[in-house]
C-alpha cells in the first residue's frame, strides 16, 4: 500500500509541475503579446519596449519560467502591474476569505448531502428518488448567478433577513463575517448538494446489492443497522472521494459566486485582474486555484486508498 501511496504522491507532484507549465505557457507562448495587451490602445514602440524590459520579457522563456516558479515556491508571487505592489501581499486576505467561504459551504453541504443520500438509498424508489432526479437536473442546469440572484431577490431584499452584499473586510472577526457568508455559502450548497447526494446514493446502493448485505437482511437485522454498520465501512472510500471531488468543485465554483455577492475573495480578484490584463496576478491566482484543485484530487485518491479495507489489509 505504501508503494501505491508514494506512486500517487509522485503523480500529484508531476501533475502540479505540468499544470504550472501550462499556466505559464498559456500566458507566454500564445500569440498574444503581454506587453501590447497591457498597454492596449496606448501602445507605442517605446513604452512597449519599456514594459517588456520591466516584465523581463526579453529573456528566453525557459529562464523566465524557472525564475517565476522558483519565486513562487519561496512565496514571491511577482508584482502586480496595476497596483505595483507585490501580489503576495494582496492575495493573503483574499485567499483566506475564499477558503473561509468554501469551508462554510462545505460544512453545510457535505453532511446534508450524505444524510440525504443515505436516506435516498434506504428509501429507494419512493418520492425521494424523483426528488433527487429533479434537483440534480436543476443543479446542473441553473447557473450559479441565477441561484445567487434568486436568493438575493427573495431572502435578502423581499424578506430582509440577510444583507445582499457580502463585502467583508479585514477588521471584521469571524462572528461579524458569518451572517454575510450565509447567502453565498447557501448558493454554493444548492449547486453542489444534488450531485453529491446522487453519487452517495449510487455508492450505497451498489454496496447494498452485494451478497453479504443480503445475508444480513436474511438474518433479520434492521435496515438502519445494515446501512450504518455493514454497508458504511465499505461505502466510506467512495463517499470520501465524492466529498473531496465536490470540495474541489466548490473552490472553483466560488469564482462566480464571489462576483455575485461582491465578496472580496481570490475569484473576484482574479476576474478583476483578467479584465485589467494584470498578467502576473492572473498567473498567481490561476496557479493557486489549480494547486488547490490538484491537491484536493490527490487527497481524495490518497484517502480512498487509506479508507479501503481491502487495501489496508492486503492478503
Amino acid at each position, binding site marked *: 500500500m505504501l508503494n501505491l501511496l508514494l506512486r500517487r504522491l509522485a503523480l500529484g507532484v508531476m501533475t502540479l509541475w505540468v499544470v504550472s507549465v501550462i499556466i505559464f505557457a498559456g500566458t507566454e507562448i500564445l500569440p498574444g503579446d503581454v506587453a501590447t*495587451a497591457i498597454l492596449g490602445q496606448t501602445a507605442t514602440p517605446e513604452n512597449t519596449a519599456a514594459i517588456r524590459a520591466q516584465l523581463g520579457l526579453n529573456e528566453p522563456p525557459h529562464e523566465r519560467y524557472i525564475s517565476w516558479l522558483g519565486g513562487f515556491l519561496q512565496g514571491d508571487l511577482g508584482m502586480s502591474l496595476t497596483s505595483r505592489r507585490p501580489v503576495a501581499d494582496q492575495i493573503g486576505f483574499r485567499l483566506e476569505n475564499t477558503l473561509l467561504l468554501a469551508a462554510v459551504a462545505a460544512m453545510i453541504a457535505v453532511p446534508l448531502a450524505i444524510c440525504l443520500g443515505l436516506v435516498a438509498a434506504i428509501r429507494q424508489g419512493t418520492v425521494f428518488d424523483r426528488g433527487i432526479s429533479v434537483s440534480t437536473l436543476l443543479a446542473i*442546469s441553473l*447557473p450559479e448567478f441565477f441561484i445567487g440572484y434568486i436568493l438575493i431577490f427573495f431572502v435578502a*431584499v423581499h424578506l430582509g433577513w440577510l444583507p*445582499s452584499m457580502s463585502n467583508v473586510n479585514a477588521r471584521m472577526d469571524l462572528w461579524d463575517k458569518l451572517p454575510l457568508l450565509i447567502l453565498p455559502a447557501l448558493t454554493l450548497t444548492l449547486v453542489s448538494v444534488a450531485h453529491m447526494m446522487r453519487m452517495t446514493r449510487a455508492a450505497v446502493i451498489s454496496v447494498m446489492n452485494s451478497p453479504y448485505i443480503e445475508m444480513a437482511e436474511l438474518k433479520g437485522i434492521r435496515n438502519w443497522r445494515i446501512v450504518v454498520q455493514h454497508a458504511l465501512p465499505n461505502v466510506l472510500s467512495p463517499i470520501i472521494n465524492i466529498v473531496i471531488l465536490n470540495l474541489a468543485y466548490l473552490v*472553483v465554483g466560488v469564482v462566480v459566486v464571489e462576483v455575485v455577492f461582491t465578496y472580496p475573495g481570490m475569484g473576484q480578484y482574479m476576474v478583476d485582474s483578467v479584465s485589467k490584463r494584470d498578467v502576473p496576478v492572473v498567473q498567481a491566482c490561476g496557479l493557486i486555484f*489549480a494547486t488547490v484543485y*490538484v491537491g484536493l484530487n490527490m487527497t481524495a485518491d490518497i484517502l480512498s486508498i487509506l479508507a479501503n479495507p481491502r487495501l489496508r489489509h492486503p492478503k
Partner: protein
Amino acid sequence: MSMIDDKIPDALPRRRFDWEFFSCMPLAARIGLGIILLNVVMVFMAIFGLTPYGETEIFRDLGNWAPPSAEHWLGSDQIGRDMLSRIIYGAATTIGIALSATLLSFTMGILMGFTAAVMGGLADNVLSRIVDALMAIPTLILALVVISVLGTEIYILVLVIAVLDSTRVFRLSRAIAMDVAVMEFVEAARLRGEGLWWIMRREILPNTIMPLIAEFGLRFSFAFLFIAALSFLGLGVQPPHADWGGMVRENSQVISYGIAAPLYPAAAIALLTIGVNLVVDYILARQNRSAAAAFEEQEL
C-alpha cells in the same frame, strides 16, 4: 432465381426517419423539446429582425428599469432599452457562440478520439496525456488565464471554449470508439486496406452516433453555461451587443432594490439548459432501454 435475388439485402437498409423517437416521448422530454423550439424561434426572430423593438433602441420617456407594461412586456433595462427585444437578440448571440463552440469542439474531439482509438500506441498515448494535463486544471481558471492574454474577441471565446471542451469529447469518443475498434468488422476493413479516415467515417461513426448525440446535448449546455458565465464576469461578449450573461451583469446592481431585471436573462439561460437536459435524459434513457433489449435478445 429471382426469389434468391430478392432475398439478398442491400448493403444496409437506409436509416429512415425515426418517428417513434417523437411519438414515445414522455411529457418531460416534450417540454424540453418545446423549450428548445422556442429558443430556435427566438434566434430566427433576432436574425430577421422580427423583434418588437431594436437591439440598441433607447426609450428615454420610459426611463431605466421600467416595470413590465403592455408595450414593454418585460420592462426596460439599465439605459431604457426594451428588455424583451434584448433577450431575443441575446438568444442569437449566446446560442450562436455556444453552438459554434460545440460544433468545433466536437469536430476536434471526435477526430482526435477516433484517431487515438483506431491507431492506438504512441498516438493514443500522446493525445491522452495532453488531454489529461489540460483536464487537471479547472476549465474556468484555464479560460481566465488564456483570456487575460488573448482578449475577448468573439472568435477567441469560441476557440477557447471549443479547445477546453474538446478534451471531454475526446475522452468519450475515444472510449466508445475503443469498444467498436476491436470488433471484427473493423479488423476486416483494416485487412482490406482501408485508410484511417474511411474506417473512422464508415465503420466507427455509424456505430457510435447515438451516445455522441446525447453527448452533443450535454456539451452544448456546458458551452452555453460557460459563455454565459464568462459574459457575466465581464470577460465574454462585450456591450452594446445583447447577450444573456452580459445582460445579467449589466442589470445586476438593481437587484438590491428589489427590481427583477437581471432575473429575466438569467431565467432564459436556466430555461434553455433545463430544456436541453430534459431531451438528453430522454435520449440516454432510450439508449439504455435499447441496449438492455439487445442484451436480452442475445440471452435468448
